[in-house]
């Protein structure tokens, strides 16, 4: 226990608490001097909480040591290129490390923790929805200053945002661990920035959870004003949490792009990179740029609340629809941030388990870029009913439908990849195939939402809820699990239990189909999104009960996974060689990966996916004498 309290995580959290008190105290003191009120419903006033939360994040980062080297540089001091990790075992992961592999695992485990929290929230409100009328989230109950329906709204909103953050962290985790290994780099381009990107996500998660106890916010994860301008102070914690997590995503993406451009092994031309790297770049382009806009949109609402600046307040000449434009400029491309790496994992793993080249490598690579670029031009399809300018609707319908083309290229290429392969079905492959089918359903239910007239019916219903859970599960969750099962031996030298893995898959997949089919069906019938209760006359009770049971089964399957994950670290079957018989460079060296990655640099001498071509090789390790070349 004592060792836990001396870790960077514990120190950071302690400093965040101190920072929050200092910031809040500062504002409270100033307000006292100015003769303003100094306490409010949640002890501090809103400006005090905001500055406190902001200071909390800064203090966390300063206190846990992730910015120490930068301060040294600013003072003109030199630091070693790489700090060796002082710790081993679990302590290594709770302290600041510059090793991309450690950071990748830190990201991944944090993502799993957040997925569990977000999933727990979902189960809570799913339980309430199992029957019409209010059962336990009643008007009379009160928790954290909220009654049942208000708490429902907060939990539902937090489920959305916590899952989004966990996905961003999961994406960053896989990219961090895998991309430098695939490129043959020793680390990311900017190891300190990499550590910073991870650690800023921790106080961000704390802020998001703080919003729950500070009155909640109940605006949906979208936080549309004027509703968010009227929500309790919790909404400010939510905004600051999102902005901090946004910086994590932006800086992480910057690092990935720089790494891919500057740190590739000799001979690794653009079209000889592993396909996952293409996906990582496409995702990072979006995350690097568009993320700023969600930060800005939330910041403007923050300032509207703090200083009365009427950006979105119609009474002051503001425009509520402007917020939606700024918000969706990120939040639509964001779904491509979530899914592109997952689709990259699918493309990466299919050839390995089909023992065949990836069909149409260049087309798949280009389709990732295509999705990323078209993704910038489709945001207003979330606003067909918003009352925005009429003439914007048809162009945005067309741009949205265009996304189907690069996505279609991926599907067709995947099918052609497994055609005449020699397929085997270990757990990662199951999740890859499951991901394809689920994502197919998500993809196919997209165009009806793009066609404006149909969307006028579907918008804000459970049809949308089902549609995007399909896209996110198919595009992220299934491939993410596939990636974890697949690269687990690389990180630990052990395999996860196959039986439990298959149980996880066969429990989760059918439950998930039931869940989203049910959602879409009642959505068509008139089930609105984001409601705590529904009219019993609509006859949705039995479907909702089934959905809730399906939700619990998914939760159970994830629990099995988590047990398997942590249990296998110590007790898994040893797997130190090329478990999957892959051509990728990281599998050509023994597992777990050595601290400084490759002892000998490699050179790319062939195509990455030439499975079944006799005598071909993707990479060749040079003798130690030769120097490293780009």
């Amino acid at each position, binding site marked *: 226990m004592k060792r836990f309290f001396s870790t960077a995580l514990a120190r950071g959290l302690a400093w965040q608490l101190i920072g929050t008190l200092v910031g809040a105290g500062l504002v409270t003191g100033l307000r006292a001097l100015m003769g303003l009120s100094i306490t409010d419903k949640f002890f501090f006033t809103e400006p005090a909480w905001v500055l406190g939360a902001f200071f909390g994040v800064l203090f966390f980062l300063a206190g846990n040591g992730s910015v120490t080297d930068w301060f040294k540089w600013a003072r003109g001091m030199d630091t070693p290129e790489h700090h060796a990790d002082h710790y081993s075992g679990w302590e290594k992961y709770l302290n600041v490390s510059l090793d991309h592999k450690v950071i990748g695992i830190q990201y991944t485990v944090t993502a799993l923790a957040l997925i569990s929290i977000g999933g727990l929230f979902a189960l809570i409100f799913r339980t309430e929805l199992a029957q019409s009328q209010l059962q336990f989230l009643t*008007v009379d109950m*009160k928790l954290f200053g909220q*009654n049942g*329906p*208000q708490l429902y709204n907060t939990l539902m909103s937090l489920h959305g945002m916590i899952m989004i953050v966990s996905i961003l962290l999961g994406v960053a985790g896989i990219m961090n661990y895998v991309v430098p290994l695939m490129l043959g780099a020793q680390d990311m381009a900017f190891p300190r920035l990499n550590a910073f990107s991870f650690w800023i996500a921790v106080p961000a998660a704390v802020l998001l959870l703080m919003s729950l106890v500070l009155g909640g916010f*109940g605006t949906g994860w979208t936080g*549309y004003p*004027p*509703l968010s301008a*009227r929500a309790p102070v919790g909404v400010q914690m939510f905004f600051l949490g999102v902005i901090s997590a946004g910086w994590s995503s932006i800086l992480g993406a910057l690092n990935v792009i720089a790494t891919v451009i500057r740190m590739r092994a000799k001979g690794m031309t653009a079209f000889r990179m592993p396909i996952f790297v293409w996906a990582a770049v496409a995702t990072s382009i979006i995350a690097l740029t568009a993320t700023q806009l969600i930060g800005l949109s939330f910041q403007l609402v923050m300032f509207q609340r703090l200083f009365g600046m009427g950006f979105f307040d*119609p009474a002051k000449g503001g425009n*509520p*629809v402007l917020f939606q434009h700024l918000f969706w400029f990120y939040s639509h491309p964001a779904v491509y941030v979530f899914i592109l790496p997952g689709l990259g994992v699918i493309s990466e793993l299919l050839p390995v388990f*089909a023992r*065949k*080249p990836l*069909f*149409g*490598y260049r*087309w798949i690579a280009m389709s990732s870029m295509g999705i990323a670029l078209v993704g910038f031009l489709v945001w207003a399809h979330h606003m067909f*009913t*918003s*009352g925005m300018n009429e003439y914007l609707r048809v162009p945005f*319908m*067309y741009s949205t*439908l265009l996304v189907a*083309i690069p996505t*279609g*290229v991926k599907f067709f*290429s995947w099918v*052609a990849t*497994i*055609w*005449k*392969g*020699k*397929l085997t*079905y270990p757990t990662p492959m199951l999740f890859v195939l499951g991901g*394809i089918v689920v994502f*197919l*359903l998500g993809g196919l239910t997209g*165009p009806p939402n793009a*066609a*404006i*007239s*149909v969307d*006028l*019916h579907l*918008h*804000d219903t459970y049809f949308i809820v089902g549609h995007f859970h399909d896209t996110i599960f198919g595009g992220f969750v299934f491939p993410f699990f596939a990636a974890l099962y697949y690269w687990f031996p690389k990180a630990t030298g052990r395999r996860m239990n196959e039986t439990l893995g298959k149980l996880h898959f066969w429990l989760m997949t059918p439950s998930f189909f039931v869940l989203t089919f049910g959602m879409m*069906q009642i959505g*068509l*019938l008139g089930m*609105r999104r*984001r409601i*705590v*209760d529904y009219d019993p006359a609509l006859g949705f009770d039995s479907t909702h009960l089934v959905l809730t049971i399906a939700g619990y089964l998914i939760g159970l399957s994830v629990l099995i996974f988590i047990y398997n994950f942590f249990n296998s670290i110590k007790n898994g079957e040893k797997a130190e060689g090329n478990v999957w018989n892959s051509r990728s460079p990281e599998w050509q060296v023994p597992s777990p990966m050595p601290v400084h990655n490759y002892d000998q640099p490699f050179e790319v001498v062939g*195509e990455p996916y030439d*499975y*079944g071509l006799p005598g071909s090789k993707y990479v060749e390790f040079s003798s130690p004498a030769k120097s490293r070349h780009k």
Partner: protein
Amino acid sequence: MRHFVIVGILVIVMAILTYVGLDVAGVATQMHPIQASLQSVSIDWMWNWEIIAIAFLFALIIVPMAYSMIVFRRKKGDTSEGEHFEGNTPLEIVWTVLPLFAVLVLGYMGAYSLGEIRRVDPNAITIKVKAQQFAWTFEYPEYGIVSNELHLPVDQQVVLKMESSDVIHSFWVPEFRVKQDVVPGRVTEYRITPILVGAYKVRCAELCGASHAYMENGVIVDTKADYDAWIAEQQAIAAANQTPEGRGKLLTVKNGCVGCHSVDGTKMTGPTWFGLFGSTVELADGTSVLADEAFISESILDPKAGEVAGFSPTTMPPYTLTEAEIANIIAYIKTLK
């Protein structure tokens, strides 16, 4: 070649099965809630084509995938690799260009269907809609009627001019299909032609606060005769209601009070008014107070001051009404016993 023929046949079979299956489930030729507006016919037409495309594309991917998974799975003891081919550029071009063409067609159909549902009838009746947390109010400017139930004549286009006084709401009657946000600070338009007599409900589709789930009001599509009768009846009531109670009742509808406060004892977001006047009310701070003129008046002007136990934290916004208006409302509340 044999593989391709089998898969080709299976794709067609699967596509048909998928479509038929979805139709049996009630989500293909028509979205499920009955078509109650002219616009819903056009929307369901578009939806049907989408489903046809979905069924075909679903089969096109899923069949060769399942076929490969079964037929090309590794047999026991086989250690060879798969057949080596890296791609096929003409094929890639085909499956890029054909979807592009499909997208253009689908886009054209979408735009056409949008045009259909936005077709303007110059003789459309105008009704003003006011949305607020958590109720809808409907005003018929031609007749001087205010109602919290929307009555529409069948086969007659109406245009709703919608305004919100607080946050964003969204007007949605599932049977009408079309949905339109109501944004504070502007008037949004909703055009609809009901074609089926019946009782429906408008439900708010944009999260608007704690009682968002309950923000629903009745929508009645009447025959022309019934509609006229209703208008006449409402006008008569309005004329007869030139009493304080009558004016008070109108005010509670107009201001949306009855969205949260029931008049028959049902528990809603706010305390019921049934039997309220003269009763003893337990407040959130533990004290009790007699519900007299002063208490009700104060609760309207400053809802937080009179926070009733079990209903806190109050979500009611303060209302700025004149003394005379409040007196009318209290007169109305007095009648609710």
